[in-house]
């Protein structure tokens, strides 16, 4: 028994209940006042590629259009698409993507800003978007910059199964990965409320492992059920929309930004016989009643506004306003001169860099070549020594055999 109880494991044994105690205290006594709802975000992910998955891209683009129409701006939408439909060589209508066989609406028409396209739609990038752990060089438009007052809509569509979702036919997102990412988001207060909509086969299994409060999730089918496409467009040649998304869009086409239809009316508008599957939603982690939550809380854009009562007049500035004008003219002249000087210096600096760069470039090949040559010399000598060492071994072994 002594061998098991060494100091390190003892320390860990003592640390674990301390951590548990501390974390329970933290959760009990953290003064979490309800943050004000400040903005809405949407993360729309299409996890399929290839021509026969046209309907998944049409699903995502339809929801993108809806969410933009109801007011969420591009800067608060993260759109992840494989984006290989519109300019696909099999597309009879180039640069056009439809979600209905009447071709009334071109989803790819104008103002579509795709943030992650093609092979950038991976499980790793998706989890990085959710948790916020990007490299430093990733631009702001590709980041989920939500804060603790944000409501986030997360929509995923593609091919899925029991507790997983297939990404681009090469990797999988598992339900525990998603639950882990949501838990980390909640710890860092990256959302106030989160609505997850999944339109895949056996979609409801994807959020089985969620534990974080404030999350509402709806899937298009339950475990063991498939989600079906709505109709086939014989002109384009593939199915153009899925049933769950079709009925969701039908609900939203009746709304504009001033409406306040509730989430419960959205969830009860799904008819299992029309969907050919059961749209299952999970509200045990969501504290508010669904009848009181308007859909624009997630699908639209609500800005809390406060009127500005008065200007901040600094009295002393009133008197010296005229002096300020004259002085500021001088200052602006100096400013312009300063900036011109800086520009001139920059020019000199640029000039200076160029010859160095050229020299460096001219030196560089030679020096790199010499380095390589030296390295090559080293490698050659190593190979030579190795060969030389092997010869006696060869001789001895042939002598032994004989």
């Amino acid at each position: 028994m002594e061998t098991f109880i060494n100091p390190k494991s003892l320390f860990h044994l003592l640390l674990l209940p301390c951590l548990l105690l501390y974390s329970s205290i933290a959760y009990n006594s953290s003064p979490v006042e309800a943050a004000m709802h400040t903005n809405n975000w949407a993360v729309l992910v299409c996890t399929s590629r290839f021509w026969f998955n046209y309907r998944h891209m049409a699903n995502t683009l339809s929801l993108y259009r809806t969410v933009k129409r109801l007011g969420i701006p591009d800067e608060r939408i993260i759109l992840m698409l494989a984006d290989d439909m519109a300019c696909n060589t099999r597309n009879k209508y180039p640069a056009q993507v439809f979600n209905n066989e009447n071709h009334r609406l071109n989803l790819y028409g104008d103002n579509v800003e795709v943030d992650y396209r093609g092979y950038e739609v991976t499980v790793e990038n998706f989890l990085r978007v959710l948790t916020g752990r990007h490299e430093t060089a990733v631009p702001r438009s590709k980041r989920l910059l939500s804060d603790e007052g944000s409501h986030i809509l997360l929509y995923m569509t593609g091919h899925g199964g029991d507790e997983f979702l297939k990404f681009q036919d090469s990797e999988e997102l598992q339900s525990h990965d998603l639950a882990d990412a949501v838990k980390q988001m909640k710890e860092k207060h990256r959302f106030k409320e989160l609505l997850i909509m999944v339109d895949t086969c056996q979609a409801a299994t994807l959020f089985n492992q969620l534990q974080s409060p404030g999350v509402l999730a709806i899937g298009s089918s339950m475990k063991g059920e498939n989600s079906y496409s709505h109709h086939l467009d014989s002109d384009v040649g593939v199915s153009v929309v899925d049933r769950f998304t079709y009925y969701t869009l039908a609900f939203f086409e009746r709304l504009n930004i001033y409406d306040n239809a509730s989430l419960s009316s959205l969830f009860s508008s799904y008819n299992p016989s029309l969907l050919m599957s059961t749209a299952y939603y999970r509200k045990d982690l969501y504290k508010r009643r669904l009848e009181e939550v308007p859909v624009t809380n997630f699908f639209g854009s609500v800005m809390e506004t406060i009127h500005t009562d008065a200007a901040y007049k600094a009295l002393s500035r009133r008197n010296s306003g005229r002096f300020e004008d004259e002085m500021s003219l001088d200052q602006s002249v100096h400013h312009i001169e300063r900036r011109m000087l800086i520009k001139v210096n920059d020019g000199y600096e640029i000039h200076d860099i160029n010859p160095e760069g050229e020299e460096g470039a001219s030196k560089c090949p030679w020096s790199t070549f010499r380095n390589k040559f030296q390295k090559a010399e080293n490698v050659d000598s190593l190979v030579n020594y190795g060969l030389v060492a092997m010869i006696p071994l060869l001789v001895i072994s042939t002598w032994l055999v004989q």
Partner: protein
Amino acid sequence: MAEISEAPDSDSSKLFGSDSKAPQRPDSEPEFDPKLMRKTKPGLKRLFLTFSVLFSFLLGFPFLWKSVEIYRSPLPFREIDSLSTQLRSDTLLFPLHFHALFVGFDSDPDRLRWSILSEITKLTSQNPKCSDNYTLSVTVDLGSRCLRGRTSSPHSSSYQCGSVTGGDFVQNDDVAVDERLASVFGGKNNEYSMAVVKGVSERAVVGKYRHAWMVVGDGSDVEMAVVKVAEVLIKVFINGGREEGLIRNEFMPVGADGKIVLSFNLLNADPHDWVYDWDFEKIDDTLLTPMIEALGPVANISVESQVLYHTPKASFSYWNQKLESYVFSTKDLPFFVNSNEWHLDTSIAAGGRSKILQFAVYVPSAKECPLLLQLPNGEISKTNGFISPMWGGVIVWNPQGCLRDSEFKPSAKNIIPIQDLENMFEVFIGQFRQLFGFKSLNVYTGASGDWNLLPSERGFTEWELDVLSRQHTCFNLHSCATTLGSLSRLVQSLPRMIIKDEIGKQVKLSLEAAKLALSNASSGVYESSAASSSQARSLAEDAFFHPSIMSVSYYSFEHCFAVYSPFFLPVSMHVVLAALRELRRYKQEKAKYLAWKAKANTAT
């Protein structure tokens, strides 16, 4: 071969043995059974060979283990826990010193002090996170001499007796009085002073520095003055003019790396009607730069500006005949910002974790000009502007003479007049203050009366900057502690995740900055504590959001096992089996030898 040759020997011995003597076998040699005995000692060479292979494997095993060890930079978990418990148990205390001066009153300073303290305790609310440790000293100036009350603070008041008289407050120039009092009181870092004077006209003003004064009429009693003094000390100097003590999180628009980018946008709704431009640099130098410098300890602020065209708004307005203008109401404000057409977030200077605040000037088209904002009570707004917390602010500016648009050439660029631009920027400064939780009005309406708040050229007065520093220090330290706690929990829950050195360094630096902030806060140096706390928070966020902490990219135990077992398992099986077999063989041979030796000994 041995068995077969033995049989005829034994046979032959049996054949000849019974009637004749044993054929040529010496009597002294005992029976030799090669199956159970051997004459020579068994060699050790085979054993040595197999065991050397086994030992070389065992010897190399620690090196292999070390080479597949996951590199985890050691994080100071204990210090992180101690920081969290320290912040929670002994709440952050900011030391403050109040000094109340009564001129022209004939009262006992100790009694006054006691009554002010009792009023203060009525007003202070319990603040679980950060509270203030204040001390109070009272001085009564009777002109000829001063009565100083007992103080509990160690440092003495530097007030010179007789420096403030009733005559100073006769003229109604608040700014001059403010300067005079500033020279008297000094206004050091955490001392707040309050002067109550008997005079002719009643007035209550809070100055730009760290003092306030009140002129009461001759007939009023001291008790009313005491109530007002307590109110201004708590509600204004400590809470910054708000009701509750702590700023809510939506009024702290500082990014996780301590930076804010102010993005100023001039939006021309319809360039076919008119196009406006502004002289931004001039205004930036005169109005914005002092404010940005003043807020240096709280946040690192940078400014950008752009002019946009074809930016209509998304809500509707209707024509009001009485006002002869187009009117939009506060109900339309949430839908005013047309994010589809207003491409505001195009900043390239802002990093990933900075906060961008958008300030937009909307120039309406000729179809909607002039455009006025109507408040719910029917009045027209004086500023035509509104804010959205954590987003920014919008002002609607109507070009002059927009009804008579024949004077303006549509394609020419008009510059916004400098006076209008100054007015606009004063509204912007008011909106910026609102985004930080202060009011843009210059009046504080308290329970016991109104106080006039003097504005400062830097946008924030000294005492407001103190309030901001204290609140932001509190918020940043708590955020840093929770972030580091989350990081330590996460790291400990994934024992096979690589933790890079950079993360360890950032955590260490964050803890050092937090300690520095705590020590500065407890000694009353607010500005440097705000700067260190902001640094602590940004380092903690950098460590938590380090891109290498991804749960999909760590080596699970199954991965390690699957890589190494196909080679090591069969090889180790063979090596161990060979060693065991050699050992068993050696033991058997040794037993045989010992048996022969025993027999030989008994025979001789």
